[in-house]
């Protein structure tokens, strides 16, 4: 019995080493920099999937080569410590994947599998953490998180920066995911992209979907961003469940893909109280370090007057409303992002919704310099009924088309209703 036990652990340990020896020749460091020798670079990992020189990595590993305008950034795959220039041949900005091709024949490639491990199974993530050395990190598979089209495998694994783009394998040395991110201020919570999306990307590549990618890459990215925002709107409209409620106010139920939380508070001197519900989509499409798209969040607050006069209560509404300001109105953040994002255009309007509730609404929008037809918008509004109950809402949307912005606002506004005494 003891002997069996020893052999099991021994063979286990041996298999990890064997796994490493088997897969490491197919995993490489990927460097994005202005030239081969430059130390000003960003590092990630990637792995070979076809001997003809095809590698998979994350989009965000090579994003600088696409988004940086001032200097030309190149992608290099380090094979035996020698930098070989790489070309992007396919890209999926929604799932943060990129397919690269180098002029090199791989001796070994990795096998992919669509089979999903069971929760609790051991998985192995490989890559070069912090520009050190190709490492093997053992972790646990903890399921899949899905928010509309955004999908991530949840792992319990201490991976680090630099390992992005590297593979995560099951015990059979098959790739189940591509390392993508870690959760900040957490203990070993990390994520990888399910391999299903790599399959989709390779398929699209083989079908010549990405023809002439080099010249038109931003058009492809734009098309993908348009796709995701369409999915988000459809997902929002899908939810036909019961209306959400805050005191006597009802409003559109948030999509089940969103994460929501509530807060109830009374003002210090108990002259008014408020109940708040905030929802956000815990995923987005990374465009660059300073820019992301394809996401939105919602904020609803119902405010009740307890002891104030009408004018004093209105003062509360005014201060809460005016206190909600947004980052991209800030001139400073605009200056640092002048080449990627436009200036904002703001306006306001008073409207009465279909449930006869008047609102004062302010909005500010801007757009991307490189992509057309997609806008970022912040909307805030407050009810103008004269009673002791008021309703405040604010939402921000990143990367939506004009039609969908209108659909979104209509959907939210038309659902807001007041069941109290008017």
């Amino acid at each position, binding site marked *: 019995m003891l002997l069996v036990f020893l052999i099991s652990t021994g063979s286990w340990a041996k298999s990890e080493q064997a796994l490493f020896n088997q897969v490491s020749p197919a995993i490489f460091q990927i460097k994005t920099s202005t030239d081969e020798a430059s130390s000003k670079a960003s590092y990630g990992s990637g792995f070979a999937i076809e001997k003809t020189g095809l590698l998979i990595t994350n989009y965000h590993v090579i994003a600088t080569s696409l988004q940086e305008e001032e200097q030309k950034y190149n992608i290099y795959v380090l094979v035996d410590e020698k930098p070989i220039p790489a070309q992007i041949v396919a890209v999926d900005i929604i799932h943060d994947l990129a397919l690269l091709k180098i002029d090199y024949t791989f001796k070994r490639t990795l096998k992919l599998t669509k089979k999903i491990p069971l929760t609790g199974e051991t998985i192995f993530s490989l890559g070069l953490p912090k520009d050190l050395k190709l490492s093997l990190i053992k972790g646990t598979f903890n399921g899949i998180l899905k928010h509309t089209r955004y999908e991530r495998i949840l792992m319990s694994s201490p991976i680090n920066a630099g390992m992005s783009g590297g593979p995560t394998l099951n015990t059979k040395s098959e790739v189940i995911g591509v390392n993508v991110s870690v959760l900040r201020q957490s203990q070993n919570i990390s994520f990888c992209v399910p391999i299903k999306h790599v399959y989709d990307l390779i398929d699209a590549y083989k079908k010549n979907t990405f023809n002439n990618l080099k010249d038109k890459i931003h058009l492809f990215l734009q098309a993908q961003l348009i796709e995701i925002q369409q999915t988000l709107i459809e997902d929002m409209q899908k939810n036909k469940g019961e209306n959400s409620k805050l005191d006597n106010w009802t409003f559109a139920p948030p999509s089940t893909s969103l994460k929501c939380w509530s807060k109830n508070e009374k003002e210090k001197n108990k002259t008014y109280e408020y109940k708040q519900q905030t929802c956000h989509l815990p995923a987005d499409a990374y465009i660059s370090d300073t820019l992301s798209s394809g996401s939105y969040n919602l904020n609803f607050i119902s405010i009740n007057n307890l002891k104030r006069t009408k004018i004093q209560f209105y003062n509360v509404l005014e201060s809460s409303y005016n206190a909600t300001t947004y980052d991209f109105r800030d001139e400073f953040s605009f200056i640092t992002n002048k080449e990627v994002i436009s200036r904002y255009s703001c306006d306001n309007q008073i409207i009465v919704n279909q449930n006869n509730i008047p609102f004062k609404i302010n909005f500010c929008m801007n757009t991307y310099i490189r992509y057309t037809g997609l*806008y970022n918008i912040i909307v805030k509004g407050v009810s103008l009924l004269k009673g002791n109950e008021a309703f405040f809402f604010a939402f921000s949307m990143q990367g939506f088309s004009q039609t969908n912005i209108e659909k979104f606002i209509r959907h939210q506004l038309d659902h807001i209703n007041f069941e109290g005494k008017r």
Partner: protein
Amino acid sequence: MITLKIKSEHSLVPTIVPIHSFPCRLGRSIKNNIVLDDHSISKEHAIITFDHHGTYIMDLSSTNGIFDLNNKKQERIYLSHATTFKMGDLRFEVLLDPGEEFLDKTRLIHLPSYHLSKPHFIFNKAFFIFLVLFFLLSFTAKYTTAPIDKKTFGLLLLEIGLGIGVLYALAGLISLVSKVHSKKYRYNTFLFFFLKWSVYFSILKLYPLFSFSLISNESFWKYFNLTINFGFIYLILYQFFILFLTRINKQKALFYACLFTLGLFSPFAIRKYFIQSDNDLFDLDGLLAYPLQTFTADNFPPQSLYDRLNQSIKDLEKLKQEQVEEIKKSQ
């Protein structure tokens, strides 16, 4: 011989003083021919002398001056029988007495010391009005922001009490430093300071509410290519204006102060008080009008919002074009 009948404002009995020698100096200092021991009289107040036109009294740059029958300040008044004039709080009537009574060269006139029992500014109407105004303004500003509880009310009273105390101390300090140690001077200085500072504090307190005014609106001045923090300059100019006016005419100064304060209101900017004000400040306004306005779906259809969205998008395309040009130029 000229006799002066001197009567103080609050006494019933006049004093008769004959003038024998010319020139005859009048004032508070004992070096004068006629010593007038009253605090409203300067040390060297006036001189009675004569020229080829006749006998006259001349002001020696006194603090309170000489005022004629019509209450107009005069440098020089020719004296004849029954001429009346006023110096400080004392009223003079001239009697041309052909009598030949000779008296001593100098006479020390002691006038009844009414000033000790004279009530001070506590009962002055203007002071009271300002105190109430200032309090009301502070109270209104505080009231619109939060319910008034005992603590807030107490703090408000303390604030005003301290304010008055500081002003009084300031006025006292100034009168101490100045040459005229007159209680009335102190009172005048105090009133003047109070006038100035109460309006100044009123502006500060209500500035958030008044900040829409056309005069203190920076955008208005930008139109004339003047980028200035007009609010601050306005306050400074205002203070000099008041200073200037009080020197000339104290009553009018009060009136002009009120007018200047009201200048903060501007009919053009009253708009801001309505919720609809079209501004890109991204804020909610309309504190005053809120209880009065009602909104109906006919006047405010939802489509108007979507039209504005549309317009913003068109503007964005323009902005984007401009930016792309800028980027191309800088490269």
